[in-house]
């Protein structure tokens, strides 16, 4: 209960998001990256198709060297948010509103050509299914080198030399031989390393990893997570890491944004979120987590029901039908409000005991 009092106070003093100060308006869209400036700033992003909104009013920022985890179950709009950040949304899904700024440059107003020059150079993406995400009829070395040829104007020869170095750096043994392999000759974990090498090729400011370890075995996942952390420490790249697995969040995140049915329902530093989840959905996710080293037999505190389809989203708080705490107030949409510290939640009763 004390939490909810705090919330109201917090809400009164700071109001709704944006949580972090907006970057100074820069004229002409020229990048003026200062230390305080976030690498990526997404504001009021809404994505939809037909009459349905799939992502609604999503805002967040990622600082240099920081890892932001986007968490939520399938159909929450995590992947679409990432694709929108990369400017990769494909018809019939499109961005309806909102801005995406990369190091101060507004991406949504850029033409195809400028956007393409930025993709792969300033921001790169890693996908869930590494084998299918590589061209099956091209050698992997060449695929890594292509980014360098396209963005840095290297010849294929020198790009290949760099590609081999990159493969070495992501922990592929005998990189000069493996560069000549085709994707189907490599394991899933190896292909994901190739994808990472490809993403790193032009030293991007931001890497977006969409369920990058979900399809991998536990031991491989551990290796890839470790590799990504190490590389991030070395390069200072900002990272958005999409996952549905809270254990992976605990491994890699600095900050977390929890999404539910197209909206962000809670954000905060990873420790705060794990120690005192404020939104009932976050709390529910925490409770139905299974961990081999902690849990014993017994009933799980499951969240009843399922994620609503975007077309059949309830009015007000979308989590209302599944929420143990919901009452009449929840028929009005709760705004994201700051709680203590940097933690925010979109709930009328944040942190309330069940």
């Amino acid at each position, binding site marked *: 209960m004390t939490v909810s009092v705090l919330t109201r106070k917090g809400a009164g003093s700071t109001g709704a998001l944006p949580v972090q100060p907006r970057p100074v308006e820069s004229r002409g869209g020229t990048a003026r990256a200062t230390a305080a400036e976030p690498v990526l700033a997404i504001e009021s992003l809404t994505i939809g198709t037909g009459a349905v909104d799939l992502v609604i009013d999503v805002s967040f920022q990622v600082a240099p060297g920081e890892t932001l985890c986007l968490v939520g179950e399938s159909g929450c709009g995590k992947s679409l948010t990432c694709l929108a950040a*990369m400017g*990769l949304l494909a018809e019939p899904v499109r961005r309806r509103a909102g801005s995406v700024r990369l190091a101060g440059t507004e991406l949504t107003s850029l033409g195809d050509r400028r956007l*393409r*020059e*930025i*993709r*792969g*150079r300033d921001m*790169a*993406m890693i*996908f869930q*299914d590494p084998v*299918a*995400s*590589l*061209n*099956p*009829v*091209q050698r992997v070395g060449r695929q890594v080198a*292509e*980014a360098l040829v*396209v*963005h840095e104007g290297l010849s294929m020869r020198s790009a290949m030399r760099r590609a081999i170095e990159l493969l070495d750096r992501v922990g592929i043994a005998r990189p000069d031989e*493996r560069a000549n*392999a*085709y994707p*189907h*000759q*490599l*394991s*899933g*974990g*190896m292909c*994901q*390393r190739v*994808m990472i090498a*490809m993403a790193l090729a032009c030293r991007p400011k931001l890497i977006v990893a969409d369920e990058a370890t979900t399809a991998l075995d536990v031991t*491989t996942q551990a*290796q890839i997570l470790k590799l990504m952390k190490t590389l991030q420490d070395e390069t200072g790249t900002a990272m958005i890491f999409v996952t549905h697995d809270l254990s992976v969040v605990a491994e890699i995140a600095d900050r977390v944004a929890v999404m539910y049915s197209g909206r962000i329902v809670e954000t905060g530093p990873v420790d705060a979120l794990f120690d005192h989840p404020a939104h009932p959905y976050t709390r529910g996710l925490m409770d139905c987590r299974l961990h081999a080293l902690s849990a014993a037999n017994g009933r799980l505190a499951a969240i009843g029901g399922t994620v609503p389809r975007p077309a059949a989203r309830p009015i007000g708080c979308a989590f209302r039908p599944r929420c143990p705490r919901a009452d009449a107030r929840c028929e009005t949409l709760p705004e994201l409000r700051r709680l203590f510290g940097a933690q925010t939640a979109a709930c009328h009763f944040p942190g309330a005991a069940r």
Partner: protein
Amino acid sequence: MSLRFVLGKLLRALLTLVLAVTFVFVVLRMSGDPVTQMLPDDTPASVVADYRQMWGLDRPLPEQYARYVAGILHGDFGFSFRDDRPALDVVLERVPLSLELGLTALALTIVLGIGGGILAALKRGTSVDHATMAMTIMGHSMPNFFLGILLILLFAMTWRILPSSGVGTWKHLILPAVTLGTSYAATVARFTRSSLLEVLNQPFMRTARAKGVPFRRRILGHALPNAGIPIVTVVGLRLGALIGGAVVVEPVFAWPGVGQLLVNAVAFRDLAIVQTIVLLIAVTMVVVNFMVDITYGWLDPRIRVDSGEATA
């Protein structure tokens, strides 16, 4: 490419060939006594008996089959009673003309079919796409003999700018080649479009976009090499349709190729000619299929290279 792969395909090709020879043999034997069919009706009975012995028709079937195969291997395809010459000679002298027509139509198909298909796929949903697809479905539905007659009516009889039949100059080639190529090109265009669209939806195409690869490079470097594999296959495998089409189109334009010969031979039941042509086409198709398989393996590293090398 592994030797195993090539040998496997070769075995399949040979098996198909054996099947074709057996098919002809069985049909030939089932359809009645070849002696009475191949000899004029008024042949005396003693001559028939002599022929039966000479051709080994009094022997058991397996032996007959062995003799038949041996004969074919020695180039003995029987005698054309209409020409009174070895059937093989009659057929072979028609082959160059049919090749000329077929290859022209094939070239037309590849340019129009693959080009149109790529164009339609890249301009998906636009009027270019719709127009191309409308044309392909019309080309596909149009009986080629009817198209041929219409073309003759227009170009040869009404406007009198092209000859209606026969061989000679390149002008004689235009109408038959266009007629023959149309429906084939339509099939190829539709297939090209759909396989390219499928590739464009693959995850690796999204990777290429995420990498910032320019459009042209994405299409030329990533999409077409992947879409090309099924396209090559279908162009090769559907070659049978082109051969079948030639059989119909050649008589329409009085093009003295193998197709016309076959139609006449069937009409006059000149069986030696028919079996020669059937076997010739079988060999052609088997060779083409074999080449397609090999090309497929050569284009697709998933087949070419032994899989299963390393783990992370």
